[in-house]
Structures are given as structure tokens and as C-alpha cells.
């Protein structure tokens, strides 16, 4: 957990971001701090700006105004080369696995390492296999993505995002295309990535019960801005938003039972 004196690992200050050819303003003066070691959930209705918020953290979407500071670096002020170096410290998984379909699993995970060329071949091989083992895909190194299930593909995508040993993992609705059981297993994997490897995670999702169990911070995004942030384990404090109240419910024992189907409304 974060040391009280340590500045936040991710600091988004008053960020306004427009996207697309029409420059639609998706984020409006959004502010969010994420401490090292946190698992921070982002919730919000579709179109509220969750994806854009995540894509702003590694500057895939460039803010119109405001600052994005990651590990003490103001990303918008970096040169292209320095931004690429900074991005190696920020892994990302998307709603779709976005694997290269013409590369096998091993080569997909090796890709970020080969791009940066910092590891010699034996160490690269070791790293790739370790990452595949971590996500439980060690037996599929030679398979092509098309031969894997959606959940397996997403695991490979997580292995690829972790290959360069980033401090931060951004997850943009990684389970939204998966069935409930597969999604739960993936959340379990993310919990292990955070707990064992100490990776700070920012995850957007609609799966409120899973987020309530996984996250130690949750930010509610409404209309392009952060409406409130709180610890989902703190179920007593009043919540400002409907989503916040719903999340708080899943933080309670009754909420967990309700979600498990033991308790009915």
C-alpha cells in the first residue's frame, strides 16, 4: 500500500479530452489520483468516458488541456521517444484482446520485448514463458490466437501487457465480451497480478460486484468528469451517485450474498 508521503503514481489533473474527427469532448476537467499499489475501478454509463480516461493515462488519447503525470513524468511534455519509454511502464489490455492474429501466442507476448530490444534472447524467452505461466497459458505458447477462446485470448493479452514488467496495468473493460465464469477467473488473475507482482491497476468495467471485491478505490465517472471516488469496502458513508450507491451495496455482506444468488430481492 502507498506510503502516505508518496505522491500518487498516476495524477490526472483537470483533464479535458476530445476524441474522433468531430473532436467530441468526452472528458471534462476530470481529476483522478491513483496511489502505487492501488486497484482503482472506473465505473460509469456507456459513453461516460471510461475508455477515454484510460487512454489518456498512456496518452493514446491526447488531452486538450490539463496534465497527466505518471511516475513523476508529465506525459504531454515528453518527447516522442521518451513517451515510448514511459509507455513501457504502462501495460494496457483492451475490451478486445487485440492480439496479432498472424503471430502465435509466444510471439505476441514477445513483441513488446522485441520492439525495445533490451533483453538478450535467453532472457527474453524466459520472460515470455514466465508471463505465459503467470496467466495460465504456458501450454499454449505455439497456438495461434484464432484457435483460443475469448478468455484465453484475453489472458494472452494480459501476459503481453505485463511482458515489459510495467508498474501500471490499464484494463479497459477486459471482461465485457466474456461469460460470467470466465470473467470471474480473469478478475481473480488481476487480483493476483496486483497482490503478487505489486502492479497498480486501473480497470474500467460494468461488473460492479467484481469491482467491489477487487478494488480498493473506485471512481464514478459521469458526464465526462469524476463525480466521486471512494473505497468500496467503506459501505457506511453516503454516496453521491446512483452507481456509487449500487457499488457500496455490493461491498456489503448482503450485497455479496445477493450477487451470489443466495439472497433474493
Amino acid at each position: 500500500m502507498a506510503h502516505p508521503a508518496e505522491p500518487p503514481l498516476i495524477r490526472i489533473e483537470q483533464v479535458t479530452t476530445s476524441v474522433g474527427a468531430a473532436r467530441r469532448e468526452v472528458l471534462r476537467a476530470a481529476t483522478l489520483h491513483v496511489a502505487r499499489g492501488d486497484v482503482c475501478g472506473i465505473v460509469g454509463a456507456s459513453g461516460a468516458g471510461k475508455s477515454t480516461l484510460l487512454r489518456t493515462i498512456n496518452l493514446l488519447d491526447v488531452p486538450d488541456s490539463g496534465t497527466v503525470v505518471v511516475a513523476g513524468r508529465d506525459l504531454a511534455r515528453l518527447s516522442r521517444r521518451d513517451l515510448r519509454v514511459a509507455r513501457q511502464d504502462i501495460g494496457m489490455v483492451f475490451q478486445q484482446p487485440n492480439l496479432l492474429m498472424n503471430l502465435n501466442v509466444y510471439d505476441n507476448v514477445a513483441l513488446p520485448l522485441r520492439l525495445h530490444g533490451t533483453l538478450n534472447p535467453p532472457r527474453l524467452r524466459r520472460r515470455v514463458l514466465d508471463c505465459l505461466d503467470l496467466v495460465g497459458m504456458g501450454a499454449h505458447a505455439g497456438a495461434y490466437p484464432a484457435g483460443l477462446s475469448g478468455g484465453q485470448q484475453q489472458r494472452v493479452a494480459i501476459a503481453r501487457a505485463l511482458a515489459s514488467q510495467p508498474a501500471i496495468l490499464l484494463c479497459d473493460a477486459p471482461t465485457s465480451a466474456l461469460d460470467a465464469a470466465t470473467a470471474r477467473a480473469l478478475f481473480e488473475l488481476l487480483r493476483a497480478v496486483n497482490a503478487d507482482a505489486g502492479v497498480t491497476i486501473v480497470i474500467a468495467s460494468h461488473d460492479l460486484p467484481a469491482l467491489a471485491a477487487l478494488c480498493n478505490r473506485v471512481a464514478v465517472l459521469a458526464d465526462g468528469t469524476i463525480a466521486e471516488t471512494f473505497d468500496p469496502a467503506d459501505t457506511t458513508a453516503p454516496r453521491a451517485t446512483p452507481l456509487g450507491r449500487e457499488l457500496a451495496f455490493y461491498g456489503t455482506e448482503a450485497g455479496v450474498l445477493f450477487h451470489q444468488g443466495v439472497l433474493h430481492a
Partner: protein
Amino acid sequence: MPDGFVDLLPELGNALGQTLTMLAIGVTTAIVLGGPLGILLFLAGADPAPGQRPLARLLGWTADTVRTFPFAVLLVALLPVTRILAGTAIGPLAAAVPLSIAGVPWFARRVEQALADVPRGVVDAGQAMGASRLQVVLHVLLVEARPGLVVALAALVVLVLSYAAVAGLVGGGGIGEFVLRYGYERFDADIMVFTVALLAALVQVIQLTGTRWARRVDKR
């Protein structure tokens, strides 16, 4: 066998060799120049930095202008250029000049399209890994576009083959000239039919090879 057919076989072999020479030069030039140009067109068009927009427009305009010329017109219009580059205006080497100039922008547009067909998500993933624009092209786009590129290549070979036949009509040599001289001008229907069948078979082989190869590299 029609009369004199066997006598013409060496001539046909010679013509075939000339056509293959034109094909080799035209296709190689289109790949070597058109491939990078296609990448450039894609890069400049897909997500142009503000300074690159005029360049993108100029490249695209040039490519499309060359492509609007009917090949026979291009062939004649380029004669002065051909004389400078090949030292002569007749023969397969001379014909290779307009062939190449026609093939380059055509292949460039096909390459651009093959790259544009790669899903946006893998490009995002590449950028998120910290890949440079060039690395995204080399390690992501060209890998994922492989099947489309192979199909484009097969189509290029067929295109240059048919252009080479056209070039034969104005002194370029090759099968086109063979057909004109022995089939058309001597009113020899057998020669005509045989040569056309030969060309058709050649195209079939090229297409089939292209399709097979594309299927093999496509792991989607």
C-alpha cells in the same frame, strides 16, 4: 498441329521469355517503389501530423493521376522518358519503363488498402506497448496485412502481365507482339487461340498460387 506451328515454337519461346522479362522488371519495380509508397500513403492519410497533410495530398494525387491514364495512352505518352531510361523505345526493356510506372501507383494503393484493413485495435495495442510509428508499420501492420498483401501481389502480377501484352502491340515484344504478328496479321486463328489459351493458363496459375499462399499466411 497447324502448318508452320512447330516452326513458330522457338519464336513463341522467345516471346514468352520477353514477356517474363517485362513481368520481372515491372513487378519488381512496383514492389520496391510501390510498397514503400503505399506505406507512406497510409501513414500520411490515416493519421497525418498537421505538417504532412500537403505531402499526403500530393502523393495521393500523383498516384491517382498516373492510374487514370489508360495504359496504352501512358505507353505512348512516356516514350520520351522511355528513351532516356532504356536508351530505346522498342523491345521488352523499353516496355518495362511504362509497365513499371503504371505498376508503382497501382500497387501502392493496394498496399495502402491492405494496411487500412488491419483492425484499429492492434494498432492501439502496438502504440500502447511503446512502438514507434515505423515499428507499428513493420511489426504490426505488415504482419497483420500479410494475406491482403499476398492477394495484392498476385493481382499485380496479373495486371503487369496484361499490360505487357498491350506493350507488345507497339513494339514491346513478348507474347503480345507474337499474337499480333502471327495470329492477327496472318489471320491464323489457331495461333491466336493457342496463345490466348497460354495467357489464360498463365493467369490461372498466378491467381491460384496467390490464393494458396494467402491462405497459408492467414492465421485469422
